[in-house]
């Protein structure tokens, strides 16, 4: 029976309370074949950490890939059992009854190679014999957005999915969604790119460079091999994160949240103590970040951001670049986002319109700056809900279309009473009939059983 089975399905949608996908478990999949990279180098056998929510339908047509941005991971939605505050980074968007409804879609979150949350990255052992079993550190090859998309495509292959219903991402994740539409145009129906840009501006690269210099000039960086010295360049990471945070917020949001508020009633006449609330906030964010994020990963990911520029090989002509795209596009930007301003989304819209592609674009007048893409502004979420509902409707129509080879999907006798399919059980759900790829609980460096590798579509 199809995931979309039952005429009651659409009636039930409006009644379904929004809830969490519940407790989930990360999985990992090992790929033995090296991944060729844009730089000409290649990544030797590697592991990808990922999570899935919802169920893959019989036609394997309802998968949505969620791409993460700078500091996020494969943990998109749900919680880890017994861990408070372990909600996924896009939990407000992804779940049963949520805009990206896991009762209708099979959602995949994947950690990109080079990151530090379970996929192979700078903190993984370097397989090169010359490395003598040390971690990669700064010897991890430079990876690009396009490389990540290739790695993701192999995971999608291994999950038995030929065409994704959608690829979704915000910011750097939006760049990956755009890259999918160019690298694998036939393998997605819908690209959803939020608060993103066709490339970084000089100002954006400048912010990244300041962050990188903060890390690299930390005396504990040790040329990127700090783990061998048993230290972490925390000071650099803190400053990098502080700079990032400033750019993710709008001036107004910062003013509203902190203003000129002081920690105490009066000036302390110090130059180094925390006096203003904004200082306290930035230091807190920096400290927190330096506890869990890898410095080499920060360098790699900011560089991938800098490099992303699909129009480069078309002499900067974005219209020519998107000539190979075929999917539908949904773009969203936020008026107060000065890091990925609406004008950057306009550039993408123009290229898509020039190519006569289907595109809708919402410009949300939200006060929060770039961070808005992670928040749940009701206008923003309503637009995404409508986008995914249309996609679900299209899939449902295909599923139920009479076909000589397949019995028609469930035709429940009546309307509203036929209950919607039961809520997904998070990580426990997996493509029916497929062996589950090694489900080593996170930190997937423990090589999982090799799944089928990058079979071409």
């Amino acid at each position, binding site marked *: 029976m199809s995931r979309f089975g039952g005429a009651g399905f659409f009636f039930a949608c409006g009644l379904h309370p929004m809830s969490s996908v519940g407790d989930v478990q990360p999985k990992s999949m090992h790929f033995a074949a090296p991944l060729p990279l844009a730089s000409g180098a290649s990544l030797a056998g590697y592991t990808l950490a990922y999570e899935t929510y919802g169920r893959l339908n019989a036609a394997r047509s309802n998968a949505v890939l969620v791409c993460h941005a700078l500091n996020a991971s494969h943990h998109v939605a749900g919680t880890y059992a017994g861990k408070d505050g372990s909600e996924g980074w896009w939990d407000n968007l992804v779940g049963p009854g949520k805009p990206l409804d896991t009762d209708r879609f099979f959602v995949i979150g994947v950690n990109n190679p080079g990151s530090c949350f379970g996929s192979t990255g700078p903190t993984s052992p370097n397989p090169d014999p010359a490395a003598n079993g040390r971690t990669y550190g700064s010897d991890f090859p430079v990876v690009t957005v396009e490389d990540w998309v290739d790695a993701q495509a192999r995971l999608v292959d291994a999950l038995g999915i030929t065409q994704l219903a959608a690829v979704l991402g915000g910011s750097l994740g939006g760049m990956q969604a755009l890259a999918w539409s160019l690298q694998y145009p036939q393998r997605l129906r819908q690209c959803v790119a939020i608060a993103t840009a066709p490339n970084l501006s000089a100002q954006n690269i400048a912010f990244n460079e300041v962050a990188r210099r903060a890390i690299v000039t930390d005396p504990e960086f040790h040329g990127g091999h700090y783990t061998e010295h048993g230290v972490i360049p925390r000071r650099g990471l803190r400053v990098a994160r502080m700079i990032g945070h400033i750019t993710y917020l709008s001036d107004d949001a910062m003013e509203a949240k902190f203003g000129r508020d002081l920690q105490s009633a009066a000036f302390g006449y110090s130059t180094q103590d925390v006096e203003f609330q904004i200082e306290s906030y930035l230091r807190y964010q920096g400290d927190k970040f330096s506890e869990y994020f890898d410095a080499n990963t920060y360098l790699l990911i900011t560089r991938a951001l800098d490099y992303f520029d699909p129009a480069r090989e078309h002499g900067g002509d974005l219209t020519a670049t998107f000539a190979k795209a075929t999917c539908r596009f949904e773009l969203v930007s936020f008026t107060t986002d000065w890091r990925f301003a609406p004008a950057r989304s306009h550039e993408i819209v*123009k290229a898509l319109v020039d190519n006569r592609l289907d*595109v809708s674009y919402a410009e949300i007048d939200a006060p929060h700056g770039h961070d808005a893409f992670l928040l749940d502004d009701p206008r923003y979420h309503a*637009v995404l809900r*409508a986008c995914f509902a*249309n996609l679900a409707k299209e899939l449902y129509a295909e599923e139920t279309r009479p076909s000589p080879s397949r019995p028609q999907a469930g035709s429940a006798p009546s309307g509203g009473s036929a209950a919607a399919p039961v809520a997904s059980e998070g990580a426990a759900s997996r493509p029916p009939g497929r062996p589950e790829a090694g489900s080593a609980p996170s930190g997937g460096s423990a090589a999982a059983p090799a799944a089928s590798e990058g079979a071409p579509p």
Partner: protein
Amino acid sequence: MSDRKDIELIAALVPQGSRVLDLGCGNGELLALLQRERGCSGYGIEIADANVLVCHERGVNVIQLNLEEGLALFEDRSFDVVLQLDTLQHLKNTERMLRETARVGRVGIVSFPNFAHWPNRLHVAAGRMPVTRVLPYQWYDTPNIRVGTYADFEVLAKKDGLTILDAFGIQAGKVVRAWPNLLASVAVFKFERG
């Protein structure tokens, strides 16, 4: 232009299979109709959040833009038809928008409330601004910041070098071809760059 009949009368001006840009597309009703019944494709441009959402829900392509900022996203003659229905009178840069419409579309179609419709003339003759079904606003809260007539548009079209291909009035869901400036509450013009 929310009247169903009015929308059908305008849709009839759009050739089958046209690539359409609908400026100020509102809730996307016309675009949906053109897609469904006339095999058209294209985009709506809309500024209001609520309308942008309804367009999404209808599954018509909508691009959220402020028309006052022009049509820089669109190349010359990149659409068969550019529609601007019940929108012109809300814009500060009416003339610029009209030129943009003629630049981007091979054919432009505009509609707007005709202030010279006879009940409006009576209102003004009696010393008051008109408040009617088509113009339901008071002078102090009207979004219709450009007040023009059927006859006025003919003059502007000539000034901007537009060739009028067809023109008529609409009154109570019916086409008015005799004395439209007097007898119709809505003016409709189909034109191309001369």
